[in-house]
């Protein structure tokens, strides 16, 4: 899919066209950054009680302001969590689509988030672990195991989208039936896990975001460093080798990056689908398939989507709220179906 897009092989493009393309990419990057800033302010300001941007500003920096407690205790941790998880899922989705050379790759649909969930369910249900520090190592192990499995099924020689997606669905089904089984064992883990498995930013505490940061930063840096070799890999292993890339090393590095990003994001806010699918598609339409532009743009736009979904969930179900994972599933699902109907011929 990625390979077939004409702009992929952009070498002989005439100079003016290239300049125009770069201008467009820069504009996309700038637009994404502005959108992210807007959503950050909205996420701090909207909720059970609305605050104007000015009040948010005072709430952030003025300890005597009326909004200080709400902003610092509740909305800031949640917004930071959404920002980090969004970056992680979006970049992981982009890397996976490049790695599997498959437009339907998404850490949620292919079962990587479910792998992290199953490991967390084991930790919470059977071993009694109950904090992010405890969860995250299990989540990373689970995500790593499924990443390797998905790569074994879909990497290297490209699988067709339908087959890869079906393999992912099967992995998902197996892991969720395991998660359900652990929830049956005792009602205490059911009580916590039933909220966690839908994927929500609501559980955010001050320290969660701080603890996630090293994992996500490491994953992000690794992904960005791999952008150029991933471009080469899109041309096929032989061409990639002749361009100086080491396909096996690049793939191993990409799996590590995806594991770090998905594992940390899932440990903090539960399995969230479709963010990693939708954002790279949107970004590819804006910047073209060059990973060096795509991945940064994904990192800026994915949190817009996740935080937007979270804010929407807070607004539509007031005074309660709809978890962000449900909003992304309900918004992303139809988009996925549209994409399938448009692109996949018999």
């Amino acid at each position, binding site marked *: 899919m990625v390979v077939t897009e004409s702009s992929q092989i952009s070498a002989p493009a005439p100079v003016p066209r290239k300049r125009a393309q770069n201008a467009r990419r820069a504009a996309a990057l700038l637009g994404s950054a502005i959108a992210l800033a807007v959503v950050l302010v909205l996420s701090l300001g909207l909720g059970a009680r609305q605050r104007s941007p000015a009040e948010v500003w005072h709430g952030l920096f003025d300890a005597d302001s009326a909004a200080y407690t709400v902003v610092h205790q509740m909305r800031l941790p949640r917004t930071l969590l959404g920002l980090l998880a969004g970056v992680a899922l979006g970049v992981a989705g982009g890397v996976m689509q490049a790695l599997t050379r498959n437009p339907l790759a998404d850490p949620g649909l292919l079962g990587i988030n479910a792998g992290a969930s199953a490991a967390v369910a084991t930790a919470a249900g059977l071993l009694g672990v109950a904090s992010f520090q405890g969860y995250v190592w299990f989540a990373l192990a689970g995500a790593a195991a499924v990443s390797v*499995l998905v790569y074994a099924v879909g990497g290297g020689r490209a699988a067709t989208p339908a087959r890869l997606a079906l393999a992912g669905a099967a992995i998902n089904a197996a892991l969720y039936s395991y998660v359900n089984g652990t*929830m049956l064992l005792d009602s205490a883990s059911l009580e916590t896990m*039933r909220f966690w498995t839908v994927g929500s930013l609501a559980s955010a505490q001050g320290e969660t975001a701080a603890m996630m940061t090293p994992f996500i930063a490491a994953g992000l840096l690794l992904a960005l460093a791999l952008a150029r070799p991933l471009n080469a890999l899109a041309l096929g292993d032989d061409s990639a080798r002749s361009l100086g890339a080491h396909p096996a090393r690049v793939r191993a590095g990409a799996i590590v990056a995806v594991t770090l990003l998905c594992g940390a994001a899932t440990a903090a806010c539960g399995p969230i*689908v479709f963010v990693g699918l939708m954002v790279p598609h949107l970004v590819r339409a804006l910047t073209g398939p060059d990973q060096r532009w795509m991945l940064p743009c994904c990192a800026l736009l994915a949190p817009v989507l996740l935080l937007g979904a979270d804010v929407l969930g807070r607004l539509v179900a007031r005074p309660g709220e709809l978890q962000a*994972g449900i909003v992304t*599933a309900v918004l992303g699902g139809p988009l996925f179906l549209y994409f399938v*109907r448009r692109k996949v011929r*018999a």
Partner: protein
Amino acid sequence: MPVRRIAGGMTPRLRAVAVGAGCLLLALVFGVLAVGGGDYPMSPSDVVRTVLGGGSPAEDFIVHELRLPRVVTALLVGAALALAGAVFQSLVRNPLGSPDLLGFTQGSAAGALLVVVTGGGSAALAGGAVLGGVVTGAVIYALAWRGGLHGHRLVLVGIGATAILTGVNGYLLTRGRLMEAARAMLWLTGSLDGRGWEDVLPLLVAMAVLAPVVLLGCARPLAITEMGDDLARGLGVRVQGLRLVLLGAAVLLTSLAAAAAGPVSFVALTAPHLARRMTRAPGPNLLAATCTGAALLTGADLAAQRLFAGHQLPVGVVTGVLGGGYLVWLLAAQRKAGRI
């Protein structure tokens, strides 16, 4: 079909019938053992005598009112799921194309959860499961239709529907109180505890009507369609009409099975594979798959009751664990054979 001798010296058709009969016999043995076990143990001969009408009043009550409905439910649910799974795998031409991966089961679950959260009884729950499954099946069919129904699009639309419905189901689980959530979770896993005749009856009727239609009416055209739509059309099969009938039957069987026992995972996926290994015949192997499914679920339920003394597991846990292991092996084997 030309008569082709294969290992064992039987024709493929004879072998399929033999496999079906063998599995059915195995299912009955499991059933007799399951009826005989429990707080009031009975020997297999006592069980058979009581089922045939020669037991004491106490034995009569225990067998006919308490234990037999559960075994019959297991037999029928296993058979229905396996038949539906074999039909789906043939329709989408992929060994992983089973209804629990393509959204149909999640539709049933959404309907049932809606009933649980609003506090409905068990009859309403079964109704919700059937309705949810049928509506989801119709929506998936409509979305996947584009000048005809084709395997790839059905798979992808189904996976999209699964992802959406998983989100919806998770939300419904968080809405209820803890007691309701626990009941919903037990249902979602799939369990045969405390089944009575009234739970079996709808599925029994559906199997009595739909199984002959699928097994006798559609098996041959379905096998021909596996060779390609154009060839099938040339041989006089109305491909799209056949798909509609088969999809409708499979969706009904899946939803009614879910209504009777909950969405028991992996029976629909594994039973057709096991059947194909035993018959060594290509094609959908519908009859053998159906009987294998019945044996698989009765065996799994027997294991679920006996595996841990004094502690009964829901049958869905057993099929989930077995199915998950099988799946990993299958993915590896498929990968090696270049089919994924």
